[in-house]
C-alpha cells in the first residue's frame, strides 16, 4: 500500500520540503477556493498595496467553482478547474506566502520557478470527479466576492481531501514524468 501523507494547513517550509512529486496527500482542515476572477481581484489588491480578504500565508487555494449545494449537502459538485489560467497570478500569491495550490493540468515555467523560489507546492485533484470530491468537503462558506457567484472565494472545511503532489520545490513535474514513462514512439 502506497504511503499517504496527511496535511493540515497552515503549512510551513519544513512540511513543504518533505513532499515530492507523486506523493499522495490527504488534506484536513481549512482551505480556500479561488479561480479566474477571484485571482484577478486578489492580485489587483496587492498591486494597490491593500490587504487581502483572506489569510494567505501558509494557506492552500483550491481552484474550483462549485455547483450550488442541494438542500442537506454542504456543497455541490466541486472538482478542480484547469490551472494554467491562474498562471499569471500564482507567482505573486506564492511570493506573499501562499504554500499550496490544488487544480488540474500543467503549470507555466514561471509558476514552477516560483514554486521553487518561494517553497510552494502544486497539487492535482481528479478533474471531473466533482461529486466524489464534494463528499470530502464538510463545510463551505463564502468569505469574499459574493457577486462572483460560483467564482466567489469560499472557506472550505475538508476531511481527507485527496490530492497528489505534481510540482515540488525540487523542480519535479509529475505530468512530465508520468507521460514520459508511458510514451511510445
Amino acid at each position, binding site marked *: 500500500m502506497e504511503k499517504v501523507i496527511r496535511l493540515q494547513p497552515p503549512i510551513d517550509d519544513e512540511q513543504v520540503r518533505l513532499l515530492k512529486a507523486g506523493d499522495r496527500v490527504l488534506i484536513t482542515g481549512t482551505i480556500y477556493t479561488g479561480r479566474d476572477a477571484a485571482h484577478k481581484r486578489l492580485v489587483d489588491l496587492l498591486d494597490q498595496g491593500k490587504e487581502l480578504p483572506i489569510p494567505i500565508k501558509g494557506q492552500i487555494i483550491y481552484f474550483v467553482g462549485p455547483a450550488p449545494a*442541494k438542500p442537506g449537502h454542504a456543497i455541490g459538485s466541486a472538482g478542480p*478547474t484547469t490551472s494554467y489560467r491562474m498562471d499569471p497570478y500564482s507567482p505573486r500569491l506564492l511570493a506573499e506566502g501562499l504554500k499550496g495550490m490544488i487544480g*488540474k493540468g500543467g503549470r507555466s515555467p514561471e509558476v514552477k520557478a516560483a514554486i521553487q523560489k518561494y517553497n510552494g507546492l502544486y497539487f492535482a485533484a481528479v478533474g471531473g470527479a466533482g461529486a466524489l470530491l464534494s463528499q470530502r468537503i464538510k463545510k463551505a462558506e463564502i468569505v469574499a466576492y459574493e457577486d462572483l457567484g460560483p467564482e466567489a472565494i469560499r472557506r472550505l472545511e475538508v476531511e481527507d481531501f485527496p490530492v497528489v503532489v505534481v510540482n515540488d520545490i525540487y523542480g519535479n513535474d509529475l505530468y512530465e514524468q*508520468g507521460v514520459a514513462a508511458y510514451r511510445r514512439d
Partner: protein
Amino acid sequence: MREMSVDHITSTVARLCKEANYFLGNDMLSALEKAVEVEESPTGRTILKQLQENAAIAAADQIPICQDTGLAVVFLELGQDVHLVGGELEAAVNEGVRQGYGEGYLRKSSCHPFTRKNIGDNTPAIIHCRIVPGDQLKITIAPKGGGSENMSKVVMLKPADGVAGIKKQVVEWVAQAGGNPCPPTIVGVGIGGTFERAALLAKESLLREVGSRNPDPELARLEEELLVEINKLGVGPQGLGGRVTSFAVHVKMLPCHIASLPLAINIQCHAARHKEAVL
C-alpha cells in the same frame, strides 16, 4: 401540420439539462469499464475507478457528475410540418435552460466576456436548429464544460497537407492539451465544409455513441488510426501518464472548397454528457 406548444419544449429542455448532468450515458460507463482493464498505469487505474465511483454517486444523489455543468448546447431537429404555438422557440429553449439549471442545482457558468460578470441563469443557450422532414421535434442537450472546450481549435489547412496533415495536427494537438481537458477524452474532428461548418461538424461528432463504428469505412479507418496514435502519447488519465488518453475519435466530414481543407478539433472530457428527447 401538427401544433406543438412551446411550453412543452421548455419543460423538456429543463428536464434534459438535469438528466444530462446527473446521469452519465451507458456508452461512457462501458468505456470506463473497458479502460480500467487496459490501463497499465496504477495511478491511471485508480483515477478511472474514481471516475466510475463519481458517476455512481452523481446518479444516486442526483448531483452533477462535474461541477462544470457547462454552457447548454442545444441541438434541435424541427420537423417542417410542426407549427409552434404559444411563444418563440429560442425564448422557450432559454427558459428551459433557466429552469433546469435553477431547479437542478447546476452551476451557472455564462458570463460577460469583458467584465466576467456572471449572467446568473446560464443563458443564452447555444442553439443549433435544423429544419427536417416530418412533424416531430428532436431535442438534444449537450452541456459543454470550459476545460475541454478551451482545448479546441479550427485550422484552415492547405489541400496539399492532405490526410497526413490532418493526422499530424490532431495528434500533436492532443499531446499539447495534455491533462488540461480532463482525459480520457473523446476527440471530435470536423473535416471540410467552411470555417464555421467544420467546427459544428466536430461538435456534432461528439454526440455519437462512444464505441460505435463510423458508418463511412474511410472515416472509420481514420478514427482507428488516430486513436492508436493518440494512445501512444502516454498522456493517460488526467494527464498523469498512461495508456488511455482518449476513449474514441469521432470524425464527421463534408465536401469543401477546392482551395481549402478546414479542420476542427473539439475535445470532450470524460464527462461526456448528452441527453435527447423526441416530441
